[in-house]
């Protein structure tokens, strides 16, 4: 495959207003809960209050009018296929069977459906599960001690060991021992709730033996795969359609399969459409969150300040089922050494089982958890050497031709200098260190920076294995349909595809129709994850459009039809010829070699690069940290739609700032104790600083018009920049997030106020 020329096309690179914008600002966009179906019933889920045990059975309260209301009660015994949510490993059940193991609080045990939501809630409350309680484990250390066995003999779902520049531990330790300085640290990052504003929602209906499922989701084909197994049916017996989706951020990557299974089972038994929309508290309590992580990091440097060795040992809490943990851990370890030159690295990662609800996908997907440690370590190196933090990072940064921890030689599209320079140029002077607030509180201010990278697309040979496909077809009215299973979850996929197709076809964007994804009408483009939709699927759509254009133009020449492509399309359809459509499958760029056994080689087709600057102000009376300034410079290859890309960067940035300062999941004995929007807080308008965004474009030759991933990268860096800034303000290290006021208060004996 030839690299595509980076040209100056008509709509790519312009901020075409979102195709779905008017529908969204007028309230016309229809989310799952806005959809109606005749005679639809409402489902609810009977959940465990016990973190670990054996389900002995259910008591149904006869005080509830089961028969009179017609309420349907579904247990694992009603599952026609295999009782599991098929993803990576066959370990997570859709409903715990009687006699089976309950693995976490709020695990689904049974289901009810009733004519109204109020009745469904009442019916749910009328079911009491009987559970024999077993000892549970909630910490990574308890999991590693394996006194309670949840998974295998060691509670380790997955582990990785990546070595570079050495063969054995003894050799590695000798190199570390020879270093001038070794900076050691332990870093802890917390669980994080995605907090999409539309809760998980799904509806199912069976018609003539076929199951139709529609709902809020990122990955229709993940749901499709899971439903084939759960319902024991063939690929055409179940159709999955995405409704307009009110945010995902990873939270609607794997969990929707569970919910789809539940509504499918209820609809089957109730013989009517059944809808489940989670209550907010239920959504927070039961669905996946970002993996908490603990990372030990050693940074060995020589007297000149060059890095001689990096040693990382990262443990993540996977929760009660394996779900996506191996892949999250993989991305975590692949980013753990950071974007710095180093000949000798050792990265170890383990993901362990606990009785927490399963942790899962969340924007960044493991990389934020390992970026935080290395950027705190680099900051400590800057402090140790008295070196300017940005200059230090610039000195050590990976550049084209350098090799990463997996010995990947970086080729094109390395924007490290560009993003670091952008931050340097806009940095200005740091804030005045000491001050007094209007209410008399003493203030201390500080500045932090960070530098980071993020692999775009699936890891290693993942994209080749996925073989994502998209189809473009000529349809009536001189229009072109883009058929892909990539979903728009707010990130702008529909608009981005429209722009790419419009340019490739050389037609007005209004002539492009991006089909609402469903598994009957669109091919499997791979999941909507991993910053791959634009770079990978957008590239496939681009190629597909060019082929359709070629074929249509050839048809026009053959049949003596002239005019622009829209006119040709119109003429083609009116000629009554069979549908002109083309399907293209992703082809990895040349030279991508990855060894899954040794975890070496090209971990990602390309990396995005980012640098961030944060100024903070700490109130010494209340220990609150206020964000004064946040600048992000991100290399996105090419911004297909600059405003949408800016929105992606800013949204990810604020999620990272929230993760750093105030987002906190309070687990008590395996239960989310703050499962409400009032107590499980995310930043409001008033918490967000004015965000400064610098888009850097170092084109990726194999992405559409040079584009590479942007969705995840802004999430990776800001937390470390915040911690670096707070550490700067108070003169002591903050190695754990969130840096709640309570944490700052507890640190006051360590302050060294300048």
């Amino acid at each position: 495959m030839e690299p595509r020329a980076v040209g100056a096309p008509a709509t790519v690179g312009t901020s075409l207003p979102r195709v779905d914008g008017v529908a969204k600002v007028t309230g016309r966009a229809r989310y799952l809960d806005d959809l109606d179906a005749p005679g639809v019933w409402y489902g609810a889920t009977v959940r465990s209050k016990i973190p670990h045990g054996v389900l002995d059975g259910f008591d149904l309260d006869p005080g509830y009018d089961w028969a009179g209301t017609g309420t349907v009660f579904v247990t694992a015994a009603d599952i026609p296929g295999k009782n599991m949510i098929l993803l990576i490993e066959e370990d997570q059940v859709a409903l715990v069977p009687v006699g089976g193991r309950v693995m976490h609080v709020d695990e689904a045990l049974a289901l009810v459906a009733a004519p109204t939501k109020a009745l469904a809630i009442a019916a749910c409350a009328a079911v009491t599960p009987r559970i024999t309680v077993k000892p549970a484990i909630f910490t990574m250390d308890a999991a590693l001690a394996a006194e309670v066995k949840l998974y295998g003999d060691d509670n380790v779902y997955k582990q990785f060991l990546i070595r570079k520049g050495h063969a054995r531990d003894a050799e590695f330790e000798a190199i570390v021992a020879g270093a001038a300085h070794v900076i050691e640290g332990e870093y802890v990052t917390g669980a994080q709730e995605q907090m999409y504003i539309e809760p998980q929602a799904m509806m199912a209906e069976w018609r003539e033996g076929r199951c139709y499922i529609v709902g809020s989701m990122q990955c229709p084909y993940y749901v499709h795969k899971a439903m084939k197994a759960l319902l024991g049916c063939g690929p055409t017996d179940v159709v999955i359609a995405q409704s307009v989706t009110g945010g995902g951020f990873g939270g609607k990557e794997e969990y929707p399969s569970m919910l789809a299974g539940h509504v499918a089972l209820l609809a089957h038994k109730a013989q009517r459409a059944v809808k489940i929309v989670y209550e907010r508290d239920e959504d927070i309590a039961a669905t996946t969150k970002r993996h908490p992580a603990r990372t030990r990091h050693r940074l060995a440097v020589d007297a000149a300040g060059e890095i001689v060795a990096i040693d990382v040992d990262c443990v993540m809490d996977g929760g009660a089922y394996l779900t996506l943990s191996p892949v999250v851990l993989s991305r975590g370890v692949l980013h753990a050494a950071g974007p710095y030159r180093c000949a000798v690295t050792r990265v170890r990662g383990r993901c362990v089982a606990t009785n927490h609800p399963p942790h899962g996908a969340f924007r960044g997907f493991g990389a934020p958890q390992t970026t935080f440690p290395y950027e705190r370590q680099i900051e400590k190196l800057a402090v140790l050497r008295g070196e300017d933090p940005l200059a230090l990072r610039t000195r050590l940064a990976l550049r084209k031709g350098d090799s990463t921890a997996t010995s990947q030689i970086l080729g094109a599209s390395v924007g490290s200098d560009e993003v670091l320079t952008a931050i340097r140029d806009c940095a200005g002077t740091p804030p005045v260190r000491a001050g007094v607030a209007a209410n008399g509180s003493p203030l201390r201010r500080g500045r932090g920076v960070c530098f980071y990278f993020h692999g775009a697309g699936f890891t290693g040979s993942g994209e080749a294995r996925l073989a994502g496909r998209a189809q473009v077809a000529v349809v009536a009215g001189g229009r072109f349909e883009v058929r892909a299973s990539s979903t728009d979850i707010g990130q702008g996929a529909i608009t981005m595809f429209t722009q790419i197709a419009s340019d490739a076809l050389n037609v007005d964007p209004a002539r492009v129709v991006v089909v609402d994804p469903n598994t009957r009408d669109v091919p499997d483009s791979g999941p909507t994850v991993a910053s791959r939709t634009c770079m990978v699927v957008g590239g496939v759509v681009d190629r597909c459009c060019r082929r359709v254009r070629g074929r249509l133009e050839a048809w026009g020449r053959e049949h003596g039809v002239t005019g622009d492509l829209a006119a040709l399309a119109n003429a083609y359809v009116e000629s009554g010829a069979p549908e002109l459509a083309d399907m293209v499958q992703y082809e990895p760029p040349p030279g991508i070699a990855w060894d899954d056994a040794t975890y070496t080689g090209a971990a990602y087709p390309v990396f995005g690069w980012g640098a961030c600057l944060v100024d903070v102000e700490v109130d010494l009376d209340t220990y609150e940290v206020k964000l004064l300034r946040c600048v992000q410079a991100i290399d996105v290859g090419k911004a297909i739609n600059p405003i949408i890309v800016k929105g992606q960067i800013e949204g990810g940035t604020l999620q990272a700032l929230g993760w750093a300062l105030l987002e906190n999941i309070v687990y008590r004995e395996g239960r989310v104790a703050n499962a409400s929007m009032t107590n499980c807080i995310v930043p409001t308008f008033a918490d967000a600083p004015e965000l400064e965004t610098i888009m850097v474009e170092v084109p990726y030759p194999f992405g559409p018009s040079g584009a590479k991933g942007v969705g995840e990268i802004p999430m990776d860096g800001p937390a470390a920049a915040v911690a670096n800034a707070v550490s700067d303000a108070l003169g002591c290290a903050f190695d754990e997030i969130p840096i709640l006021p309570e944490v700052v208060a507890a640190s006051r004996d360590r302050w060294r106020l300048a």
Partner: protein
Amino acid sequence: MTPETAYTRPRDLAEALAVRAAQPSWMVLAGGTDLMVSAIHKRVPAGILDLWRLPGVGAITEGAGGGLVIGAGATWLEIGRDARVAKAWSPLALAAREIGALQIQARGTLGGNIGTSSPVGDSLPALLALDAEIEVASVRGRRRVPYAAWCTGYRTTALAADELIVAAHLPPLAAGTHLAWRKVGTRRAQSISKVMGAAAMRVECGVVTDARIALGAVADRPIRIAAVEQAVRGLARAAAAEAARAAMRGAIRPIDDVRSSASYRDLVAENLVARFFSGMI
């Protein structure tokens, strides 16, 4: 099926009091910002006595001797925008402006805050420090309860089963009284308080002669800190701040919960109270 909830929207206070006397179990509902939260999971009330915009109990009027009377039905928007409240009883105005955000301020009422008496009710420490009196009414007549005697426990009050809250009376403050307010919440807006404090401090000839210090979210009800109030009497500003800090130690017993920790609340309360004195302008 559950019988339908009865509903009454009285035309005036007299009618409201009659319904209240006849149906003491009915929910007394004003803006609903507390009682309606997660309503679909709550027990359906037998009846609703709707006091929203009840004529005669929503106004902010000047009372006898330079005081102010705030009707129970006044919303946070109205209180927060009232120039008289802002000028002479600023802790209440500042509290009003920090409650929730626009949507909550448009519906939440002073009477609701006083009636539900949540430990984190944002206006309550202000009422305490401002020495407010709560006026209640019933078919039996009217009475006034000093706010200091209003809260009888966790979310319980001196309100009788046939009574309704009519108003809060704010007495005029003596010359030389400095006022202060500080809310420390979970975030910068739309937040639940972790600690809040209100202070009315009288300074004459450079020394503190009287102080009312009230804290919220650190006990089962808003509380005055008598130890501090006594310790600062007769001291100059800087000395008062130090004495207040010392007197705060052990003065409160806050709790750990999902929003914060006992030690944080204790420490911040101490800092705020000390700052009230050292930060007086």
